[in-house]
């Protein structure tokens, strides 16, 4: 057991299912916990739900994944049912990831969501796939991010909130500080990178139906590690380090950079659901090898 405390929670394992991966239903998330995740995050949802983009919406390439799922979700009412169902079956914490098309919608979805009592509300201000539809992601603007953070915090009651940022915009360090200053209890770093595009050279068209999609998976590990490192120097709130983790070594890099928990998404494609167990075990082995007793003891050591 690699126990780790995170805010008011005590997780038995430091790995967390990242948002958008297998987070649609209670039963799916329960299986992820059975595979070793210390906590799970739901797919991001808003008030009304969204159909998302047609397929192809998720495209593996040699070094990562490209995705433009387009924030498909069944809406907060459905998700509340799934969260309750999950909590009835599972001890592990569940993080609810929310988004809105307007700042007000972030508030509305929070107001409705609290009824389900998720253990954390993750505030997705950084999905690059909805840029064209809603303008620039909120996460690119310090002002908007501050406002979103405040409104979610206002309605979240005693549920802690984590703001999820991308690696772009005006600098992760600066944005991290903005979130902390406006009430964020934690940060989730990072969302997908890019976006990117791949073109089929025989039919001569972009492959994703949305043309562009965010890059995740092994390709982005260095950018994620750097983002966590940079934010850790600016804030005192804990960080869920996410992006490109496929091995225990990757996860340890995140912890050394300053992460408290390790988010894993695309890794499920590369290593199967077993990835959670493998990464937990690898972290444990590393701690034992060097005589540490908990991940907390190595957190941020790369800064020294």
């Amino acid at each position, binding site marked *: 057991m690699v126990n780790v405390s995170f805010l008011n929670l005590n997780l038995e394992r430091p790995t967390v299912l990242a948002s*958008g*991966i*297998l*987070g*649609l*239903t209670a*039963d*799916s*998330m*329960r*299986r992820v916990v059975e595979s070793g995740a210390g906590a799970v995050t739901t*797919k991001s949802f808003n008030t009304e*739900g*969204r*159909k*998302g983009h*047609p*397929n*192809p*919406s*998720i*495209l*593996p390439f040699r070094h990562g*994944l490209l995705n433009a*799922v387009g924030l*498909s*979700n*069944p*809406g907060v009412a*459905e998700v509340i049912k799934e969260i309750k169902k999950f909590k009835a079956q599972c001890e592990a914490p569940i993080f609810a990831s929310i988004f809105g098309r307007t700042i007000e919608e972030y508030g509305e979805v929070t107001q409705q969501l609290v009824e389900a009592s998720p253990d954390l509300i993750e505030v997705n201000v950084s999905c690059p796939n909805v840029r064209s539809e809603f303008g620039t992601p909120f996460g690119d603007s310090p002002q908007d991010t501050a406002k979103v953070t405040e409104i979610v915090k206002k309605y979240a009651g005693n549920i802690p909130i984590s703001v999820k940022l991308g690696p772009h915009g005006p600098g992760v360090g600066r944005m991290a500080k903005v979130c902390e200053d406006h009430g964020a209890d934690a940060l989730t770093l990072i969302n997908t990178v890019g976006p990117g595009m791949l073109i*089929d050279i*025989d*039919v001569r*068209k972009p*492959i994703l*139906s949305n043309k562009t999609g965010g890059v995740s998976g092994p390709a982005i590990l260095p950018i994620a590690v750097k983002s966590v490192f940079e934010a850790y120097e600016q804030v005192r709130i804990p960080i869920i380090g996410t992006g490109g983790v496929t091995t225990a070594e990757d996860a340890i890099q995140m912890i050394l950079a300053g992460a408290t928990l390790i988010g894993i*998404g*695309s890794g*499920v*494609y590369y290593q*199967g659901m077993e990835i959670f167990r493998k990464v937990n075990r690898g972290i444990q082995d590393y701690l034992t090898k060097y005589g540490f007793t908990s991940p907390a003891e190595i957190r941020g050591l790369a800064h020294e």
Partner: protein
Amino acid sequence: MKTYPVLRIIEHSPTVKSFYFERMTDALPGQFVNVWLPGLDEKPFSVSALGDDWLEISVKAYGPFSSAMMELKPGDRVGIRGPFGHGFSLQNDALLVGGGIGIAPLHLLAQALSAQGLRFVSLLGATNKSELIFATDFERRSERCFFTTDDGSMGKKGLVTDDVLQIISDHRIRFVYAAGPEIMFVKLKELLDPLGIDYEFTLERYMKCGIGICGQCVLDGSGARVCVEGPVFNRQALKEVTDLGLPHRDASGRRK
């Protein structure tokens, strides 16, 4: 993802066609490929047959995507990736129950069973004769082959499930494979569970990634992913499934 030109098209009926491609991959019976129509969408289709140098899928026109496939001409390029999922196990003394386009995956299974010299009986149903695809081939490969149609245009008029118990006892059947509408599985479960006969059904759910990460295709109850742990599930796995025959999730994840 790579794209491949359509090599040949067989028109079974105005709304059911088979498409041939170069054999870009192996596939086990029950496995599927994702087919991308550039500019439109990408959907899963079971491999219905494999030759030395070709791969076949068979499509029934339902909605926008499958209807667009009916417009394909030889030489048109479509994207194909896969094979995905886990296929059927190969069993002796089996009954293959296929409904409608569900006959497609069973056809590759029949190929594999007869290649292994395994004994099986087939029971295929469709709305009418023209949709009873691969009928001759099933007749050739199966020990016996029964047909049903809604309109009686071929075989017996009625549902595939009507005579299942009779066939099982007449033909020493010890294992049942089924592919087709989910309502058929519900009925089969009711019939087979009391007998203690093992089975494998191939399920369909709305899919996005096909590679086990989006969570769109998960079953209720077990949480199994149709695209990875499925599409073929056995009796044991189906026991935990709580949404068999119930409305499924659409693209948003909402139950219809």
